[in-house]
Every structure is written in structure tokens, then in C-alpha cells.
């Protein structure tokens, strides 16, 4: 029995320790107040930070979601790869910290009167990271490579506005026939099939980034590796251990190397959102890619200065399958279900991340476009519910004869919560009996596409480029992603007109009309517009929120921490509050 005592004591110790950890979790301020705080940001006249407030070590550690699929800019599809590629390369255009399209490799450009021909005048003194001069020839080579059928680039969809791109991709025309022409060593002309107002934005997509010809010819499929990759952006690839990290070093030959403050950036592929938050809390990363959906309240309480939530150009909605019972030819029933859900509750209590309730398809803030708002957006929820009941009965349903339907979604905690909440609102307001069906992602996508079993399904769309058209086009008759089976000749005609309209205001008007047509047909159940949400160290500045969620490291810098003296001098002023004004 004497030996029992130490073991029991040890056990009790372990248990106590575990409990103690659990307990400390709830203590307010433990993670917050003892965290070292940076000095306040002081800007010089030219807008750059005062050197005296900068940290000695300008190294940024960024969580980056999943492992990037590739660092070949033309083959990359995923968002994580795009984050790294925007640091490595620069296109003809680039973007400011706010996401505004600004001159990149091209110093300026002319757009022809019919808006179909773009002439780019490149900067003359640029070089690749290996010292090769960067000329218009490099862009000609790169755009042809991206459109070459042998490259088999998925993202080449983005090149389709360029003349002959479709034929080249189909192998019907040689790559030399692509609508890209060299006018001289530093002048490039790109011809489009029709007016494409977002074309300058497309040129900032990795598919339009230049690659170094010599680099590819020398290393073939393995050119995008550390020690081999030649790039023209603010950083160069220094290390890449798959699923561990990607390390980029400042490129001394970059055209704005003098203004680039960060010396090195580490990208960590951390798939698990909770793990990422733990790494942030342990001080191992300055920037998370995401935060877990269920930790909003806790983070808001404990990391108010670090939690950043900002609108994103994506919409979350549910879609109807219009080709099957019960929704085929039944707009009143569809409208009833649209009206019966309470978006305030869905965003505040279910999604919880400051998502904006939505009554339309296109999220606000897209390139100046103001989305169509249906009449019922201004009603009170009680009025909507009243009208929903009227329409429900008009469609022939009642408490005795309730609608039986299903909501189908791909397996994810968030979709499940949403579907459950929507189903219970329908049940409560109308008495609808809803079955929830969850499926693995690719199974779900295939079922959506085939339109044989679906009734109501979760959907969402995050645009690749800053233009409302990317939301509207998938509702066109026969579009590959038209999982709704929507077909309206008026709507299709409007889309055709948008494709050829070159006057901005008229084009916007047409898009508004198209959205109005779509929303009046009740093809979708709009729920909310997406937000980006992450934790950012208060030391990391220079970046700004934008709807694209693009944050090139070259705009960033790190503030130094307060010394003991400064700590005593200004203990009350929270640095986040002081900086917030400049940051927004």
C-alpha cells in the first residue's frame, strides 16, 4: 500500500494540472494583458513608416491554410498558392494595399476606343531575380505558355477574354495566334474578343504572371523549386519543404526593393484552424489565414485587438433545383421559403462572424456596383413571415398537408449549422418538414450538377475577379455551374448585352437588370455575404482590408515592441486604438 500513495499523488497532480489549464482558459486577460505591445505607428511625409518605430528583425510569419498546389504561376489553382505567388511575381498590373489595381511591370497603358485593344508600355530598367532583363518578350512567352494546350492550365479560363484564346486552348489554332503582340522590346498589345472592364484586374492573377523562359527550358517541370525558380516580384523562393513551410527572401533586384521593408517571409501550411490559432497564441505566427467558426465570441473577448473581420467578395446562399418537384414552376413556394428565414438570426447567432445579411446575389463593394435589393428587404421580419405564410398556402400547402423537402450540403460544420437553422425556421413559420442530407464534397458537387436528386442545396460563390458578372454568368442557360436548371431568355439576353457593352454606367445598369430578373424568379435563397476573419499581430502593419483578400507582404512591416520606459510612459493608450484610424 505504501507504493500506492506516490502514484495516486502523481495522478492527482496531473488531473489538477489539466483542470488548472482549463480554468485559466476562462480567466479574462491572461492571454491579453501580459502580451507585449508594439510602439505606436509614426508615418513619414511620404507615407512610409518612421525607421525609429520599426522592429530590428523584419521577418513575417504567415499561416497560409493548405499546402499550395504548385508554385508554377500558370498551373496554380488554389488560394494558398496565389498568396505566395503574389509575393514572388509581378504582372503587368499589380495592386496597392487596398486592392486597387495599379501599374506593375507596365508603367502605363492605352485602351482603344472600342475597349478591345490594350497597349502596355513596360518599365525599361527591370530585371529578373537572376539578373536577366525583363521585357515585353517575357510576357509574350508567358501568356502563350499559359494558353498552350500542353501546359493544361486550369486557370486559363481567366484568359478567355483574349482574342483566339478559346481556339488556342482547344488546339484549333497555334499559340502564335493568341491575341498578344509585341510592338517593340518594351511595348505589348493585347487584343480582346469584347469589352472586358475587369481585364486589368485579370492581369494581376497568377495566370498572367511572367515566367522566365531560360528558367523553364533549363529545369522543365521542376523549375518552381528553391534554388531554381527565377521570379520578378518583391521576394524570391529560398526554401520549400512541402507541408512544413515556404520561405521567401527579399529580392534585391525588385523595382521597389528600396521601399520593401520585410526581409523574409515564412508561409506555414496549417490546415487545422484551431491549430493555427494556437500557433498564433503561442507567438509563432503573426497572421492567421482563418479562425475557427465556433471561437468567435472567445476571440472577440480575449483578442479584440488582433481579430480582424472584413467583407469579402463572396455570397452564401441556397439554390433550388428548378427542374424537379416541388420547386419546378412554383415561384410562390420558392418565394415563401426565401421570406420565411430570419437572416439576422442566421448571421448573428449561427454564423456569428459579422457576416452581412443579404437579399441579393452579388455582394456589395464589387467595383462600385450597387446590388439589386428586392422590396421585401425593407420589410420587418414579421411582415416577411406573414407574406411567406400567405404564399405557402397559395402554393397549396398547409399544416395538414406540409411541404416535405430536403436540404443537401457538403459535409462541414458550418453548412450543417446553417441548414439546421434554416430547416427549423421553415418548420416554425410554415410547418415545412425538411430532411438534412450531407455528402462528401465531390459527391455533392456531382449531385448538384446532375440535378436528379437535389431539391434545395447549399451554395456559395467567391469570385476570382472584382466584377459582378462572375456571379451572374453561372445562371446562364447551359452554363456548367448552372446547377439550378435556371433558363430565362430575358436573363440570357441581358448577359449577352453585358458582354458587349463598353460604357461602364450602361453595363452596370444591365447587370442590375439581370440581377433583378434573377431575384424575381427566386432561383436562390440569399443568406449572407462572406467575411474574411483572421488574427493579426498588432506589430504587423502596412496591410489593409480589401474585398479581394489580397495581402502582398511587400506592403507590410513590423513595429518594434515597447521598451520598459515606454511601457511606463504610456500605459493607458492601447496601441490598436491609436493605429486603427490609419489602418482602415
Amino acid at each position, binding site marked *: *500500500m505504501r*507504493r*500506492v500513495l506516490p*502514484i*495516486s499523488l502523481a*495522478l492527482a497532480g496531473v488531473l489538477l*494540472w*489539466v483542470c488548472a*489549464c482549463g480554468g*485559466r*482558459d476562462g480567466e479574462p486577460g491572461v*492571454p491579453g494583458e501580459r502580451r507585449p505591445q508594439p510602439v505606436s505607428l509614426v508615418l513619414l511625409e511620404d507615407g512610409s513608416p518612421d525607421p525609429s518605430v520599426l522592429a530590428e528583425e523584419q521577418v513575417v510569419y504567415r499561416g497560409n491554410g493548405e*499546402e499550395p*498546389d*504548385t508554385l*508554377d504561376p500558370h498551373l496554380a489553382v488554389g488560394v494558398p498558392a496565389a498568396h505566395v505567388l503574389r509575393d514572388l511575381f509581378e504582372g503587368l498590373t499589380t495592386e496597392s494595399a487596398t486592392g486597387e489595381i495599379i501599374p506593375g511591370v507596365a508603367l502605363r497603358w492605352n485602351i482603344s476606343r472600342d475597349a478591345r485593344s490594350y497597349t502596355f508600355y513596360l518599365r525599361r530598367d527591370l530585371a529578373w531575380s537572376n539578373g536577366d532583363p525583363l521585357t515585353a518578350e517575357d510576357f509574350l512567352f508567358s501568356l502563350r505558355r499559359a494558353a498552350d*494546350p*500542353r*501546359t*493544361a492550365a*486550369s486557370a*486559363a*479560363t481567366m484568359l*478567355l477574354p483574349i482574342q483566339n484564346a*478559346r481556339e488556342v*486552348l*482547344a*488546339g484549333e489554332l497555334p499559340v502564335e495566334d493568341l491575341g498578344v503582340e509585341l510592338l517593340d522590346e518594351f511595348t505589348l498589345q493585347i487584343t480582346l474578343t469584347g469589352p472586358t472592364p475587369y481585364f486589368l484586374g485579370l492581369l494581376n492573377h497568377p495566370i498572367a504572371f511572367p515566367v522566365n523562359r531560360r528558367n523553364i527550358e533549363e529545369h522543365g517541370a*521542376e523549375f*518552381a*523549386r528553391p534554388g531554381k525558380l527565377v521570379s520578378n516580384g518583391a521576394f524570391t523562393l529560398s526554401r520549400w*519543404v*512541402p*507541408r*512544413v*513551410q515556404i520561405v521567401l527572401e527579399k529580392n534585391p533586384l525588385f523595382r521597389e526593393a528600396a521601399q520593401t521593408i520585410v526581409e523574409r517571409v515564412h508561409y*506555414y*501550411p*496549417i*490546415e*487545422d484552424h*484551431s*491549430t493555427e490559432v*494556437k*500557433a498564433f*497564441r*503561442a507567438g*509563432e505566427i503573426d497572421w492567421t489565414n482563418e479562425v475557427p467558426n465556433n471561437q468567435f465570441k472567445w476571440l472577440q473577448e480575449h483578442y479584440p485587438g488582433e481579430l480582424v473581420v472584413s467583407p469579402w467578395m463572396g455570397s452564401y446562399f441556397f439554390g433550388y433545383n428548378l427542374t424537379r418537384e416541388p420547386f419546378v414552376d412554383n415561384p410562390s413556394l420558392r418565394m415563401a421559403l426565401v421570406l420565411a428565414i430570419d437572416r439576422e438570426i442566421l448571421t448573428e447567432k449561427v454564423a456569428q462572424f459579422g457576416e452581412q445579411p443579404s437579399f441579393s446575389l452579388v455582394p456589395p463593394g464589387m467595383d462600385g456596383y450597387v446590388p439589386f435589393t428586392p422590396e421585401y428587404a425593407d420589410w420587418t421580419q414579421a411582415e416577411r413571415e406573414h407574406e411567406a405564410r400567405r404564399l405557402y398556402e397559395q402554393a397549396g400547402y398547409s399544416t395538414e398537408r406540409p411541404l416535405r423537402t430536403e436540404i443537401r450540403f457538403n459535409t462541414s460544420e458550418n453548412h450543417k449549422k446553417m441548414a439546421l437553422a434554416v430547416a427549423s425556421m421553415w418548420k416554425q413559420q410554415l410547418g415545412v418538414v425538411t430532411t438534412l442530407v450531407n455528402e462528401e*464534397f*465531390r*459527391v455533392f*458537387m*456531382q*449531385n448538384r*450538377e446532375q440535378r436528379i436528386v437535389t431539391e434545395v442545396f447549399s451554395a456559395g*460563390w467567391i469570385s*476570382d475577379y472584382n466584377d459582378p458578372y462572375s456571379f451572374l454568368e453561372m445562371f446562364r442557360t447551359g*452554363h*456548367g*455551374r448552372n446547377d439550378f436548371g435556371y433558363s430565362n431568355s430575358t436573363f440570357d439576353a441581358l448577359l449577352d448585352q453585358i458582354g458587349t457593352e463598353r460604357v461602364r454606367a450602361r453595363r452596370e445598369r444591365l447587370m442590375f437588370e439581370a440581377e433583378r430578373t434573377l431575384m424575381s424568379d427566386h432561383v436562390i435563397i440569399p443568406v449572407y455575404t462572406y467575411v474574411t476573419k483572421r488574427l493579426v499581430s498588432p506589430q504587423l502593419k502596412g496591410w489593409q482590408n480589401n474585398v479581394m483578400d489580397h495581402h502582398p507582404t511587400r506592403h507590410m512591416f513590423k513595429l518594434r515592441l515597447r521598451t520598459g520606459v515606454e511601457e511606463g510612459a504610456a500605459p493607458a493608450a492601447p496601441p490598436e486604438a491609436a493605429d486603427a484610424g490609419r489602418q482602415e
Partner: protein
Amino acid sequence: MKQEGILRHAATRFLGLIPTLLLLITVAFFMIRVAPGGPFDSEKVLPPEIRANLDAKYHLDEPLLQQYFRYLGQIVAGDFGPSFQYKDWTVNELIWRGFPVSAAVGGLAMLLAFVFGTLIGIAAALRQNTAVDYTVMGVAMLGISIPNFVIAPLLILGLAVYAGWLPAGGWDWSWQRMILPVITLALPAVAYIARLMRGSMIEVLHSNYIRTARAKGLPESLVIRRHALKPAILPVISYMGPATAALITGSVVIERIYSIPGLGSYFVQGALNRDYTLVMGVVIFYGVVIIVLNFIVDLLYAWLNPRIRFDEVQ
């Protein structure tokens, strides 16, 4: 005589490996292709022109049987092909980068589990039905029943976030980053081995030859070490074959929570992404590892158990 038997046994086993692997490859090859959706399906639908280019590049436009034989040909040459998802890497590269990590973490965990598990099991068996026995077995039961996705975040929160003694995750081959994943993986195995060891030890201690040994007046420690240990450890050895195979080929849960670049995630991610070549590569690799480890267990068994002789099989 015994040597020869083992050699013959080894030869038969390795010949038997070929049809097993062929069956494995065939089933896996067709199963992953039957699964709905393909490697290039996503929310953004590809225009048919681009889709055709991708299919041509990865030979997905060929008839299925032709693809199958093309793949078999590749494997014979030792080439698992390029990954569909991680386009800069070949499947061979990914496996050879992932396996050492999984093997290090899993191997250390197994070693830890074996040493502590057997010691705890013996201690409990020797004090059968005392407080020590009940405490240890109670804790072991907890160790088996608490899933590692609960233990792992607790360990990170306690030791990394609050105490700051260890990193929260990531990988650089340092012991600091290995410690938590190894412990998390080892815990259930320690518990399981301890229970196995206790059970078989108690059984052996009640057998006649142990009574004889004691009657001859041998000291208890010698009885345990010389006579009881070898037969008692047999069930543990047979458990360790498949268990080691499972541990050293990586656990997707552990890899996700600790952000470790092991093999387990390639298997799961590969299947979810319909990365045909990656899934196939990992499946075949798993198959080989399991067959090899089972073979090692057989050899150990023969060495430990005087009742098994390979030459008698013939």
C-alpha cells in the same frame, strides 16, 4: 535445420507478396476511379477545351484498362507518377519526404509504448488485485478511451500556449517538436500493451512450469525474467506488428493537429482530392510496410515461442 526453415519461409512469404500487392493495386485503382467526381472537378467548372487538355496531360482520356496497364508498367519501373494535386512533386518524392517523418514519430511512439506498456503491465500483474493494479488499469482504460483528438489539443494548450515550453506544432526534426505528437500517439498504445501484458503475464504465472520453477526454489525475479517473460510477451508482439505499421505510416489526426508533414494526410487528402496517383502510391506503400512488418513479427514469434518451428510446417 531451423535456419533453412526460416529462409524457406521468407522466400515463400516474399513470393506471396506479389499476388497480394497486385490484388491491392487492382482493387484500389478501380475503386478510386469509381468514386464520384474527378481530380479536376471543383466549384468552378472548367470549359471543355481546358478539361480536355488536362485529361490528355494525365492520360485520363484513355480507356480505363489502358490506364490500368500503363500504371502497372510505371510501378514495375518504380515510378508512382506525378501528383495531380501537388503538381511540382512526384508521388515518389512526396512519399520519401513524408515517410521518414511518420516513421520517426510512429517508431518513437511504439518504442515508448512497448517499454512503458510492458513494464506497467508486469507491475500490475505482479500485484494483481491490489490498489496498484486497479489504479494502473483504470488509467490505462482512460488512455484507451480518450481519443487523441482530445488529448492533443489539451497538451498543446497546456504545454505550448500557456507554459510556452514547447512549440504548438510544425516540424523541423527537433526533439521539441516531436515530443507532443510522440506522447499523443504512444498513450493509447501504452495503455493497450499494458493491459495485454498484464493479462498474459497473469495467465503464464498460473501455469504449471512456473509452479515447478518456484518449487525448485528459484528466486522470484529469476522466475519472471527467465521463464515467464518470453511466453507472456507473445500477445504483445503479435499486436505490435499491425500497430507499428499503423503508427509509422502516419495518423491524419495527429498530423493535422500538430501540423506534421507525414504520410497520413497524403492518404486522406489524396482520397478527398481524387489525387489518383497519390492515393495509389500511398496504398501500395502501406501494403508493403504491413506485409514486411507481419513477416518480422512471424520471425520474432518463432524465436520467442518454442512451440513454433517453421520446418514443421512443411
